[in-house]
């Protein structure tokens, strides 16, 4: 028995994937195909975990069909246009464009092709795209199929394990520690290289329905990777952006791009199609513009706002109903139970809860990655919605694979596992399990409610220097209450840990917001004290990194020439 086994169960692997969502399973398959021994660890089962576990209906891609908009060059130009200041085109070119053909081929190979039953692509245009990039497909069972492929390629899967800390050795990451959420067993995983892919941060801002788990993306995703990687010294970027979307009133469900892509129109209470007043692309404007339109119509007394699909042909309505169910399995149930028939009724809409996620479909926010998906921490790669350049279905499938390849290559260059510092294990165990020992204190729910209120009131759609400083001062006080958090069981212990991850992400978001003295992506970062977009000073990323216990803030300028093919 190694000395580490006195603390819990110990696993050893070449590549460890933390978070087996869409990015994670693709990373695992890549690492296994590139000769690594792979372990995936997830709080749930990789068959259905993550934001696309229950299904997905679209895959954004250019297909080089000869149309002007359907090329790599046009896609990069579009990315640079809708995500200017946040997207790094050199990274996107390498990990998205570079991996796109293989990603399309991989999905077909595992039995989930992007084509319709007749072999053709069904493509729609939405969210600011210059042409119909959205390939509609049935991704209801995409996750189980990818999970099966990961298991077939020999990946070991550890389910129902919450990872709480990265373990470091001489500045490099040597593994992770966590616990089984059902048995409480401590799990230590030693790895030569890691891929972090735990998604974005949800449950972070007050939910308009008062139901904190009624979130657009998976509420189990609470910024684990961003939080752990930052604590271990990794740089994070694009953290200031508040992401919002437009959803059916009452249900924060995916489906907006399906509705607008099929020709759905946004109407205000006066029956006016208002989006052309906000953006030349009207109902097919970028997401941040749709949010702005709905929000401002409501605030101007022209709400509520509705989705109108009544003019669609029967054939298009049938396709829409099908594709909405692929994107969010229960959305057709919701619409039906609400008594709405899209062929004759309007569907009321609302602006969703806020979340930490990228400001556009083509890039994200979180761990800063390079053209190999490597973070600034040796041995650590990142992909999916916790990395600063990949989110949404297709960039995540492509980027996940790139991260797995990078991690496998790195693992091959490392002769043996790095030593594990036992003191770090002792400290992590002590911190993580302390809430189970407390008799009384603050529940995770109360703690989270306070956090959500502070962030929404001060870091929501109206931000000023004063409101951001107010948030930071209140978050400082909340920080002191971490030591009072209680958990009555292991499920609550997982939630307590998630609440602390969310606090960390909230603080990073506030710090980055303070330094971005301009407005960018409309209400996604709306500094009313600096209402203009200031490309001369802020066309780039606010980068945060922990140095000697302090948050070091730097600026990474970005330029938008299209990289050479």
């Amino acid at each position, binding site marked *: 028995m190694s000395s580490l086994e006195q603390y819990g169960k110990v696993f050893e692997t070449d590549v460890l994937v933390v978070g087996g969502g869409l990015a994670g399973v693709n990373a695992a398959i890549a690492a296994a195909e590139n000769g690594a021994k792979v372990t995936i660890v997830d709080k*749930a089962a990789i068959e*259905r975990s993550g934001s696309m*576990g*229950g299904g997905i209906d679209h895959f954004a891609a250019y297909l080089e069909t000869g149309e002007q908009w359907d090329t790599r060059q046009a896609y990069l130009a579009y990315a640079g246009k809708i995500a200017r200041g946040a997207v790094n085109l050199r990274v996107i070119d390498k990990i998205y464009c570079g991996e796109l053909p293989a990603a399309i081929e991989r999905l077909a190979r595992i039995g989930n092709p992007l084509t319709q039953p007749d072999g053709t692509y069904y493509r729609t245009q939405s969210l600011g795209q210059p042409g119909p990039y959205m390939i509609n497909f049935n991704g209801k069972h995409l996750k189980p199929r990818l999970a099966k492929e990961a298991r077939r390629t020999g990946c070991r899967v550890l389910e129902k394990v919450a990872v709480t800390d990265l373990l470091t050795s001489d500045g490099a990451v040597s593994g992770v520690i966590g616990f089984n959420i059902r048995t409480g067993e401590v799990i230590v995983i030693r790895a030569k290289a890691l891929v972090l892919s735990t998604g974005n941060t949800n449950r972070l801002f007050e939910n308009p329905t008062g*139901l904190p*788990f009624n979130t657009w993306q998976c*509420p189990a995703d609470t910024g684990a990777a961003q939080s752990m990687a930052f604590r271990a010294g990794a740089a994070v970027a694009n953290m200031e952006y508040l992401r919002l979307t437009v959803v059916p009133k*009452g249900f924060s469900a995916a489906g907006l791009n399906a509705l607008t892509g099929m020709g759905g129109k946004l109407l205000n209470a006066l029956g006016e199609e208002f989006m052309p007043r906000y953006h030349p692309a009207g109902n097919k404007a970028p997401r941040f513009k749709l949010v702005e339109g709905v929000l401002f119509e409501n605030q101007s007394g022209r709400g509520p706002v509705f989705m109108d699909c009544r003019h669609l042909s029967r054939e298009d309505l049938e396709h829409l109903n099908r594709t909405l169910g692929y994107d969010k399995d*229960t959305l057709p149930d919701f619409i039906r139970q609400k008594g709405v028939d899209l062929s004759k009724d309007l569907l009321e809409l609302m602006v969703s809860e806020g979340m930490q996620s990228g400001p556009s479909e083509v890039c994200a926010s979180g761990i800063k990655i390079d053209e190999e998906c490597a973070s600034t921490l040796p041995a650590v790669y990142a992909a999916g919605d916790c990395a600063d350049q990949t989110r949404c279905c297709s960039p995540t499938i492509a980027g996940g694979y790139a991260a797995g390849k990078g991690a496998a290559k790195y693992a091959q260059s490392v002769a043996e596992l790095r030593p594990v510092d036992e003191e770090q294990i002792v400290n992590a165990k002590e911190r993580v399990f302390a809430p189970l020992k407390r008799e009384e204190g603050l529940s995770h729910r109360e703690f989270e409610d306070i956090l959500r209120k502070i962030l929404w009131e001060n870091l929501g759609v109206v931000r000023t220097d004063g409101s951001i400083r107010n948030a930071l001062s209140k978050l400082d006080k909340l920080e002191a209450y971490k030591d009072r958090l209680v958990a009555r069981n292991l499920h609550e212990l997982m939630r307590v840990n998630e609440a602390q991850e969310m606090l960390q992400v909230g603080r990073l978001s506030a710090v980055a917001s303070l330094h971005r003295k301009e407005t960018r992506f409309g209400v996604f970062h709306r500094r009313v004290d600096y209402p203009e977009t200031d490309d001369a000073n802020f066309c780039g990323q606010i980068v945060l990194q922990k140095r000697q216990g302090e948050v070091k803030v730097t600026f990474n300028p970005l330029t938008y020439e299209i990289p050479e093919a």
Partner: protein
Amino acid sequence: MPPRIDAAKCNGCGTCDRHCPIDVIELDKGKRLAVVKYPDECWHCGSCRLDCKEGAVEIVFPPRMLLV
């Protein structure tokens, strides 16, 4: 809150417990019955219903989501 599990149809296989991404459902091994233990933490992804071979899962949205 969704989901609702029909005890008469549930065969206790535990798939919904395993596949729930949020740890909302837990199998009562003694009774061989899946229990929706944390209904207010459900995010309505539908994975439990998609993967239930017995058709024991029904999704029922609460009035709070339908009526507001």
